[in-house]
């Protein structure tokens, strides 16, 4: 039986997350067999489909191009997935806000459980996932006929792009009278996307105010890094909420994570402790962040940051 990957895309671009979900799907297919199909649902998504067809391991790209799928609303998307699900043994997508929104709805409509934030594939029916803010790893076995799961993309290296998969249209159009898109406010950023950045520079309550985040911007620009923040910094209004790294924000695993003025609460560590190298800059030498940091520097960030920027 085959696997269906629901693609993440926005503004006519395929998100990198999809390559990671396909990598997870390939690991499952090694145990379970089956083709990997990618579903692109959206409004005017021809370019997204072309990008998906290039991804290694994809057998077929199925495209549902209609205004009703335009803003990835859960109600029509779940209905579309239900209409396709009988052809598949697995439906996967990334643990993005879209994936988290839509997939449990599909699972319940098919009367099966969902496995959230899968980070490891043990066999065709046995998977690893984090629980308790990543402080424990559960191995779970599903005997559901249809396995519905969201994938923690930082745990899988994305597949390459040497493929030329078949693209075919799906004509299914569903009704949606339950929900209506009004508008959206997206944060504009020239920097790399937080979830996929190789370097992340994050600030916490210790930054003092939003203006002081400029000190981090200079360093982020020199390193080509994304900017992140702790919940404390978001709640204090220093930066928008989509900067938040942690259990309730984004999960990142960059090559280098620089935590500045962040104490290191469990909920924050849940979002970054799989980073390859962690640097902590904090004036409190007993801050818990130093227990996970590879390199710690105790001192006043207002002195350290300008010096660091200059020496990079």
């Amino acid at each position, binding site marked *: 039986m085959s696997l269906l990957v629901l693609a993440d895309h926005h503004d006519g671009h395929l998100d990198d997350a999809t390559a990671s979900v396909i990598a997870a799907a390939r690991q499952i297919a090694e145990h379970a067999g089956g083709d990997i199909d990618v579903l692109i649902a959206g409004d005017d998504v021809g370019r997204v489909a072309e990008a998906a067809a290039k991804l290694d391991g994809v057998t077929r790209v199925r495209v549902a191009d209609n205004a009703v799928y335009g803003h990835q609303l859960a109600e029509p998307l779940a209905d579309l997935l239900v209409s396709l699900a009988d052809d598949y043994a697995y439906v996967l997508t990334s643990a993005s806000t879209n994936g988290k929104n839509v997939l449990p709805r599909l699972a319940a409509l098919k009367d099966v*459980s969902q496995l959230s934030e899968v980070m490891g594939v043990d066999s065709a029916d046995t998977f690893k996932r984090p629980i308790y803010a990543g402080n424990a790893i559960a191995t779970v076995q599903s005997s559901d006929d249809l396995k519905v799961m969201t994938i923690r993309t930082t745990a899988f290296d994305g597949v390459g792009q040497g493929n030329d998969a078949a693209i075919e249209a799906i004509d299914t159009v569903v009704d949606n009278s339950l929900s*209506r898109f009004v508008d*959206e406010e997206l944060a504009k950023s020239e920097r790399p996307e937080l979830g996929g950045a190789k370097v992340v520079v994050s600030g916490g309550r210790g930054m003092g105010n939003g203006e002081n985040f400029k000190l981090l911007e200079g360093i982020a620009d020199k390193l080509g890094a994304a900017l992140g923040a702790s919940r404390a910094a978001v709640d204090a209004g220093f930066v928008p909420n989509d900067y938040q790294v942690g259990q309730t924000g984004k999960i990142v695993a960059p090559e*280098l994570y620089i935590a500045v003025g962040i104490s290191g609460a469990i909920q924050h560590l849940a979002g970054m402790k799989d980073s390859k190298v962690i640097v902590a800059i904090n004036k409190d030498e007993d801050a818990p962040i130093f227990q996970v940091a590879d390199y710690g520097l105790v001192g006043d960030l207002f002195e350290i940051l300008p010096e660091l920027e200059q020496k990079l």
Partner: protein
Amino acid sequence: MKILVAVKRVIDYNVKIRVKADHSDVDLTNVKMAMNPFCEIAVEEAVRLKEQGVATEVVAVSIGPKSAQEQLRTALALGADRAIHIETDERVESLAVAKLLKKVIDEEQPQLTILGKQAIDTDNNQTGQMLAALTGLPQGTFASKLEIPDDKLQITREIDGGLQRLELSLPAIVTTDLRLNEPRYAKLPDIMKAKKKPLDTKSPADLGVEVASKVSLLKVETPAERKGGIKVGSVDELVDKLKNEAKVL
């Protein structure tokens, strides 16, 4: 309108968890338990809607062992009018919770049901969406703002990259994000009064729901520990280590 709020009893979010020696689960004996933080936000929102005159009654519901009544009493102290406890000692997965809550919705007919976006123990982030699917209602997940100007629900959602506004028909299911509100603390007189508020107890069997899951928990492990790092004395030393030792610059 009537509002239903689902609350879950979980380990207190400040507690550092321990995995049992036999790796069967996390050890919950003698640890501090509390209402899941996202559920507190759900209760707070329901109570605010009542204070604004939008809601007429707030009903809190929880599924779990006898001790989950503590969290229902907390919800009552915070302003819920009455509570329903579905008592079970089984491990109840999201799908079964959603099926149980659907039965409660069938009986109570609330216009709005509010849940937290995820419980901090299982970190599933599923129940609200599953409940919306089973009831055939629209879902407003990860809500950071709610308005009910007429017979519609206007909701602002926290999505990757920013905020999205939707309009949902009512009745609807909403799940709360952190920034929806700042939950209040229960005051002592309200805690005393909450002891007299009605609390019904039912069983999953009363509701005709089978709680057994097709997902079994095979093993729980502690994640690989990071090896202890070092403290450096200066910015120069830090840059040198990152360039020459860690080779990430």
